[in-house]
């Protein structure tokens, strides 16, 4: 039996022992992957962890706070290039990551200001403009982008006798888990509640004493911090960046991942990240059809499962939890 006996029980991160069980098993499986999986699997895993951090951030903004943003590539680029420059200056990786995140968060706040006045599609247009402006800035100023050759970034070092790839894998796994936990904590706290309140009914939220300015800007700052970290990790993973990697279609892919994974869901962010990484891999022979697959999936998701893959996942769990009753 799983009776809630105190208010404290209601606040537990993992409610059912069974949930804890399979989460532990998943984490152990992920930890063992470098020993059993091939190089390609490690590559994919690393990429999914990195991307899911960014998708989680954008899910906080788009899914939870309801501020539609299409400028993610801008924050990615800011994160990646700040990390690149800081790493080239010889800063330790942790510090450079933090710096990249904070730089993106700073620009997030700047972009957040229009959100105080604009809603829905209008905000989407402003953020879209921001994304393109950042791309153009990096493309035209060689001081920032490292010129035609792009910016070469020192890769993650090999640690504890592991290969370089495996070290990077563990580092991104660690970051992915840390950010997942932080996101779960954030959204179940007073702040997450305030974000959802702003999405559901901003006037009512304001009348209850939620400072719209502060929380909208906070949401922008936090989400761009995540995206900045995503960009920085991606830069380190690739070992090389140029502005072309952060064009508008990158924003769209992140947006698609948020929607397909499931709005306002942390698991959804991970599913969405896995989707946008795995689909191009599976259909690598038909590259030109990947956007078509994304588009069609979004349409199907919108019609049949508005909560995305996370909604499906939730229903599946509910089904097995209640089995054989329905």
């Amino acid at each position: 039996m799983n009776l809630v006996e105190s208010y404290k029980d209601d606040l537990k991160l993992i409610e059912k022992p069974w949930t804890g069980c399979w989460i532990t098993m998943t984490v152990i499986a992920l930890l063992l992957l470098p020993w059993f999986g091939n190089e390609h699997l490690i590559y994919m895993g690393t990429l999914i962890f990195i991307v899911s951090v960014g998708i989680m951030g954008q899910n906080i903004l788009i899914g939870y706070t309801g501020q539609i943003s299409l400028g993610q590539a801008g924050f990615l680029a800011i994160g990646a290039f700040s990390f690149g420059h800081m790493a080239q200056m010889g800063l330790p990786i942790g510090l450079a990551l933090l710096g990249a995140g904070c730089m993106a968060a700073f620009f997030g706040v700047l972009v957040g200001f229009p959100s105080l006045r604009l809603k829905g599609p209008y905000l989407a247009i402003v953020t879209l403009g921001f994304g393109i402006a950042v791309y153009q800035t990096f493309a035209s100023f060689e001081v920032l982008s490292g010129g035609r050759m792009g910016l070469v970034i020192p890769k993650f070092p090999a640690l504890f006798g592991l290969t370089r790839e495996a070290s990077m894998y563990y580092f991104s796994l660690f970051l992915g888990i840390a950010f997942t936990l932080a996101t779960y904590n954030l959204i179940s706290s007073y702040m997450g509640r305030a974000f959802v309140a702003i999405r559901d009914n901003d006037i009512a939220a304001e009348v209850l004493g939620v400072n719209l300015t502060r929380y909208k800007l906070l949401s922008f700052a936090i989400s761009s911090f995540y995206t900045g970290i995503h960009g920085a990790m991606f830069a380190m993973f690739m070992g090389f960046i140029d502005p072309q990697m952060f064009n508008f279609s990158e924003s769209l892919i992140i947006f698609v991942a948020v929607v397909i994974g499931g709005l306002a869901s942390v698991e959804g962010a991970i599913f969405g990240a896995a989707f946008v990484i795995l689909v191009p891999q599976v259909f690598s022979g038909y590259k030109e059809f990947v956007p078509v697959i994304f588009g069609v999936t979004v349409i199907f998701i919108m019609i049949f499962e508005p909560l995305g893959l996370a909604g499906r996942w939730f229903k599946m769990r509910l089904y097995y939890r209640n089995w054989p009753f329905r």
Partner: protein
Amino acid sequence: MSLLKVDKLTVQFGGIKALTAIDFEMEEKEILAIIGPNGAGKTTLFNCVSGVYHPTSGEILFAGESLLGLSPDRIAQRGIGRTFQNIRLFNNMSVLDNLMLGRHMKFQRNILQAFLRIRKEELLHREKVEEIIDFLDLAAYRQARVIDCPYGVQKRVELGRAIVMEPKLLLLDEPVAGLTVEEKNRVAYLVTEMRGRFGFGILLIEHDLRIVSRLADRMVVLNFGQKLAEGNPAEVQRNPEVIRAYVGEG
């Protein structure tokens, strides 16, 4: 000193005068009803007091301090809570979370506590919220999503969300509209109980005159943005101007 003083309040939307030089005062722990036909400006008045609209001219004093130019969240912090005529709840949250948001201002907010899952505050405020859940008899709906709850329950949740703010002044915009007779009586009871138990001053908009005249200590009648009459319910209902506005020429 009066709890709320509205002085020559005028609101203009372009050429339309929604409110013209409205004056009234209310004391602490008073239940003051605002009545009037549709479009009289009652909700506009509420929106001005709670900071959603900014009046064209005039003054609103709450406990002696001006509320003009403050944003709604600052006004909420001063101690004014409100409900809405057409329910404005956070539809995708549970009833419990809706009520917890009412405690938002009282939280000691700390971004690190949020990220590190330190939930001492949360438990503290949960106690208070549970008290109100008992008071409003919402225990059966605690974990239900608000949008799945019946209308009467949603009305009560909205009432509860305003109560947990522990305001000094509560603005209730048609709290019994659309309810059954039974539910109406229950809300009427809750309103008087709220004053007795929590000591709120209550400013009330209502169309159901039978309920209002039973609840209110005094009434203010608005029509076309102007104050028609003020006084205790019996006086107001005998006022010929009021009868003309409500029933038409006799």
